[in-house]
């Protein structure tokens, strides 16, 4: 297996592992980009293609296909924020987020959806984002779909996903296939641990190599600490080198000066950097309205082998329950399957001792569904807030409100019904007080009475959005529709933190499309070339 990263490094790409720096340094560039995920990767590609000198700053390590051994024990500490166990302030929600070159795109499950038209319509209406619509964005999505090989996945779904299609069909509910950003995928099922065959067209193997080949400089193990600004302009970004453990600072500083700064550190990291820097925030919007698509989990046991660890992790979905009420009504949810691997499954599963062991013995017959709640549209769904802890690092405080629990109950019921319809012999919400049910009738009664509270009912998230929301005016948002900060001239935010609500779909393609648009506009401005034609 060719490793494009190691080959590129051998050919002279400029990569600085800041944990190996022997002294502090100062570097100049045209553009500094903080973060190498969906937003930072696309920005680096487009800005470097315009002839601009780009520096990329990444807190995590540079790892590539030769390092991806498909073992949870290695992958989670190496590739995820806080070893894949980042928690909200009250520890009631576990957040999966990438922390490596490529960000979450290196570890995501490849599900690719355009931003739904009704979401754009809501943004136009509530946030004055008239420039953004399904039509105006369609060419940007098309460009990124082409570039990242987003297309229909022709291989039959694995059993874990097929059961969602079967259950839906038996209940008369529409389900559909998920498009994936893969090229010559081996259908192994280990997308979440870094693709060992470079089939997944993540930022790690597409945009970032393209930028590095044009001379962009990549710093890893480097934490963006604080933006310095004078008047209305950012003058420099102060960064702290981390030690090889990625946790402690090493005592060396890197000061980056540039004409423009692009923040793409994710929906927790981006607002945190701006907050640490004390950038103007007169309407107190920074870090607010952070959304998670809170996820409920339902595990079932099938009479047959499911082998949920094997095969493309997500290939079937149903949006039936997303469209039962108005977009700003009771929260709707998207249902997808979840890949099963021993550590993630065992730690997520409730209980301990004999009861836990019994479920684990049936691991190969386990079937797991996820319901992603669409937060941020209902007037009472205000999401969470990023706050800085004593060490300056961010914590997300996301209260689980009655509005969310009401939707959670409907979601747990819907998933149990789907699983029984697909032939399950046992289904249980992941909930500390549930011992599971042997029939849909039993589940319907039981789930109706389950107390739904933080820490009792397991809630997870893999989609962090918002915190630097875009709008037409600084009273309603941190940045405008181009990602430009309202108060500082040479500052852009280009990642999932600009979404003013959640999306109701897995976010990667929404970020790629908007980043392509906004980085193209910025590239034209900075390089003096003609601007792209924006519909």
């Amino acid at each position, binding site marked *: 297996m060719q490793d494009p990263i190691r080959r590129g490094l051998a050919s002279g790409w400029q990569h600085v592992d800041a944990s190996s720096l022997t002294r502090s340094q100062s570097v100049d560039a045209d553009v500094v980009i903080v973060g190498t995920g969906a937003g930072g990767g696309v920005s680096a590609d487009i800005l470097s293609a315009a002839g601009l000198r780009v520096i990329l700053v990444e807190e995590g390590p540079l790892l590539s296909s030769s390092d991806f051994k498909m*073992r949870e024990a290695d992958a*989670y500490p190496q590739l995820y924020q806080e070893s894949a166990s980042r*928690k909200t302030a009250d520890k009631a929600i576990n957040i999966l987020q990438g922390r490596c070159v490529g960000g979450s795109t290196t570890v995501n499950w490849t599900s690719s959806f355009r931003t739904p038209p009704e979401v754009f319509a809501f943004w136009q209406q509530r946030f004055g984002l008239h420039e953004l619509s399904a039509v105006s964005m369609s060419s940007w999505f098309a460009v990124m779909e082409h570039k990242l090989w987003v297309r229909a996945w022709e291989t039959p779904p694995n059993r874990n996903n097929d059961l969602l299609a079967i259950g839906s069909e038996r209940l008369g509910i529409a389900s559909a296939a998920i498009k994936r950003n893969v090229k010559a995928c081996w259908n192994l099922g280990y997308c979440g641990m870094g693709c060992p065959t470079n089939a997944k067209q993540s930022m790690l193997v597409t945009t970032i190599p393209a930028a590095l080949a044009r001379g962009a400089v990549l710093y890893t193990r480097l934490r963006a600490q604080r933006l310095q600004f004078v008047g209305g302009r950012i003058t420099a970004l102060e960064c702290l080198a981390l030690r090889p453990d990625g946790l402690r600072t090493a005592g060396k500083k890197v000061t980056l000066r540039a004409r423009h700064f692009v923040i793409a550190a994710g929906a927790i990291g981006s607002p945190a950097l701006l907050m640490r820097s004390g950038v103007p925030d007169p309407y107190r919007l920074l870090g607010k309205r952070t959304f998670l698509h809170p996820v409920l989990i339902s595990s079932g046991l099938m009479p047959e082998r499911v082998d949920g660890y094997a095969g493309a992790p997500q290939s079937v979905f149903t949006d039936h329950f997303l469209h039962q009420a108005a977009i700003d009504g009771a929260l709707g949810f998207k249902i997808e399957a979840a890949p099963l691997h*021993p550590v993630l499954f065992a730690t997520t599963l409730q209980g301990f001792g004999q009861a836990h*062991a019994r479920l684990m013995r049936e691991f190969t017959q386990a079937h797991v569904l996820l319901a992603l709640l669409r937060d941020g549209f209902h007037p009472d769904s205000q999401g969470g807030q990023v706050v800085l802890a004593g060490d300056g690092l961010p914590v997300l405080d996301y209260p689980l409100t009655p509005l969310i629990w009401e939707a959670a109950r409907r979601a747990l019921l819907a998933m149990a019904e789907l699983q029984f319809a697909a032939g399950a012999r046992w289904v249980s919400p992941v909930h500390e007080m549930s011992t599971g049910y042997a029939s849909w009738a039993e589940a319907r009664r039981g789930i109706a009475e389950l107390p739904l509270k933080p820490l009792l009912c397991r809630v997870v998230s893999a989609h962090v959005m918002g915190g630097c929301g875009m709008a037409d005016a600084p009273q309603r948002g941190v940045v405008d529709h181009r990602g430009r900060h309202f108060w500082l001239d040479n500052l852009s935010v280009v990642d999932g933190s600009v979404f003013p609500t959640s999306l109701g779909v897995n976010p990667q393609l929404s970020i790629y499309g908007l980043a392509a648009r906004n980085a193209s506009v910025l590239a034209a401005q900075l390089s003096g070339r003609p601007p792209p034609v924006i519909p």
Partner: protein
Amino acid sequence: MMSSRRQFIRTGLVGSLLLSFSGWLNAAGARALSDSERALLGAVGQAMLDGVLPDDVGQRQRLLQQTVDGIAVEVAGLSLATQRELGQLFGLLVSTPGRIALAGVSRPWGEASREEVQHFLQAWRDSRLALFQTAYAALHDLTFGAWYARSDSWEAIGYPGPPQGVF
């Protein structure tokens, strides 16, 4: 009201009853677990992993030690803030007053019965106090994470492991 009660527990018990845990982290990061912490985590492992541990005493002890080693590695990969919290939790539980008053375990961890430790875990799992619930959840995730990270635990659940071949 809930938060003020939680706050009281946090400052009242964890703060004053217990030691200063500034020694938890050494310069290199993962500090080795102390013998008393190893005994605690071994006892927790024996209770959590009931149903997957072998009957043979020697094998069992060896696997529990490996699980505790795995927990030390896991802890070292968490944020420094979380490592500090876990240091406080372990410190709380290895102290005699903490073990007796909060965990309800009368004998030292190395001598406590599996049932006694399971009773403690169940009580914290069912607790109305978020502090105990989250502490239970941390012990749960660390123990099962360490256990199922090891490839020799996979045969029992039918997991063949990652695909082998030329990559």
